[in-house]
């Protein structure tokens, strides 16, 4: 119902007046299958096309060739079944926290009472009590991102697309948000595509990690995390404990090595 499939997707950008001539191939043939309710993290060097992939799943961009399907249907445009959490939050600055969270529900035509119920629920869930009538600029970065996540969750999307959502936050807040996301993913699981630069974050959060390379953007490796997580019982421990486990560090350094190989690749 919410399976995301990238079928041999490519993305080419025309570069007018480019001295090297020709177009820029951002993504050259990527195929990924994200099963229902699976949490997949994508890591890779800058320019590998991971954000473009996410935007194609969101319907904000179209592939040059190949196909992206969600729940079996090709993606034709953006919609509330695939909620997006942006790195820069993208909260409406002229709406209060309450109005931001309720926006998707309002679009759907929910009654004021239903909207308020949902708002209260997510305020509590995300630890945002008391901020309902504040404006985004009055909140810290971490709280703003929580509002953004609440806004996406409020419409109960089948798919959650997150583009480096914690990238703009400081280290401490980021750790807290990661724990919160794990908790949320456990209590109301859904298909998640999660872009990040941080290997730690990817290993901690995801069921599978896709490693991408650039020039052109392509899948280099797919590493299964969930088996290790279940076996070692990460869910029962705090994030700090998990990050010290040998199984964690083993996975992390393996991925790091792969990533470094990609980073060492020559840029154009």
């Amino acid at each position, binding site marked *: 119902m919410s399976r995301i499939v990238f079928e041999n997707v490519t993305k080419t950008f025309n570069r007018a007046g480019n001295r090297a001539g020709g177009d820029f191939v951002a993504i050259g043939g990527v195929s990924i299958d994200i099963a229902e309710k699976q949490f997949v993290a994508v890591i890779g060097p800058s320019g590998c096309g991971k954000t473009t992939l996410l935007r194609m799943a969101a319907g904000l961009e179209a592939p040059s060739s190949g196909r992206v399907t969600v729940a079996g249907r090709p993606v034709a*445009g*953006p919609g509330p079944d695939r909620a997006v959490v942006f790195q820069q939050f993208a909260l*409406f600055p002229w709406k209060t926290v309450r109005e931001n969270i309720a926006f998707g529900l309002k679009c759907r035509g929910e009654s004021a009472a239903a909207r308020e119920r949902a708002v209260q629920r997510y305020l509590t869930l995300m630890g945002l009590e008391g901020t309902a009538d504040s404006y985004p600029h009055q909140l810290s970065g971490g709280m703003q991102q929580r509002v953004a996540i609440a806004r*996406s969750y409020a419409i109960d999307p089948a798919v959650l697309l997150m583009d480096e959502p914690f990238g703009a936050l400081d280290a401490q807040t980021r750790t807290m948000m990661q724990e919160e996301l794990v908790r949320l993913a456990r209590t109301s699981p859904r298909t998640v595509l999660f872009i990040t630069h941080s290997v730690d974050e990817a290993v901690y959060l995801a069921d599978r990690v896709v490693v991408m390379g650039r020039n052109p953007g392509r899948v280099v490796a797919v590493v299964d995390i969930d088996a290790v997580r279940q076996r070692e019982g990460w869910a029962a421990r705090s994030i700090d404990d998990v990050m010290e486990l040998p199984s964690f560090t083993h996975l992390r350094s393996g991925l790091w090595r792969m990533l470094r190989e990609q980073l060492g690749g020559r840029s154009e």
Partner: protein
Amino acid sequence: MAAALTGGRKAAPSELALWSLAGAVVFLGSWQLVTASGLVSPRQLPGPLAVLGAAWTMTLQPYAGSTLQTHLFYSLQRYGFGFGLAVLVGVPLGLVMGRFRLVDDIVAPVFESLRFVAPLAWVPFAALWFGTGIGGPVMVIFTGALPPCVINAYRGAKLVEPRLIEAAQTLGASEFRIIREVLLPGALPSIVAGLRVSAGLGWQSLIGAELIVAAAGIGYAMTQAQLTIAPSIVIACMLAIGVIGYLIDIALRGAERAVRRRWGQA
């Protein structure tokens, strides 16, 4: 900030006030001197006191048909209609043009070609079609006040962070909702700035229209004073026009500030 520029001591507000006072004194003083000394005949340039006297008299006794206040009232009435119409038509048009490339492509060439025709150039047609009724000046004001409304709404819509529009789309918003709840508030600072310019241009166009085709109103009074060579009344009317224009601008500047505060960009 200016202190950082000159690198000198930052001037205290009291010192600045003194400079302003000096400027006012120099201005008014030299004006009065020039007329009193006889360099220029009072028939050409009356002194500041004569102008004030003429203005005061005009509030008590009708000139060219009405008192000063009544003239201003007629003018403001036409202005209100013309400006209001320009806002109601221009702002939505600008937003829609900013949102839909196709609309932009269709309307822009027409808009650009008409825009350069000075609003005053419409006066002959306005006079032909509406005579000296209210339609003529309203049309001229509309023509003058429309461009900034459209342009600023358009620019404001274009400047709205694309991520915000994308966020609205991914949350399931219809186009109408996107324009109403994302573009309009997002463009509001630009729109209000445009309203300020539009209000000013509209007020100017009104004066122009009244100079040529009116039977009452402050511009008409000025034309009559010009024809009878009564410069003190001309200048008095100019100052009245200036004062009203200034008050309109203050009101809109307050609106601009209120919008900024609400949007958190104070």
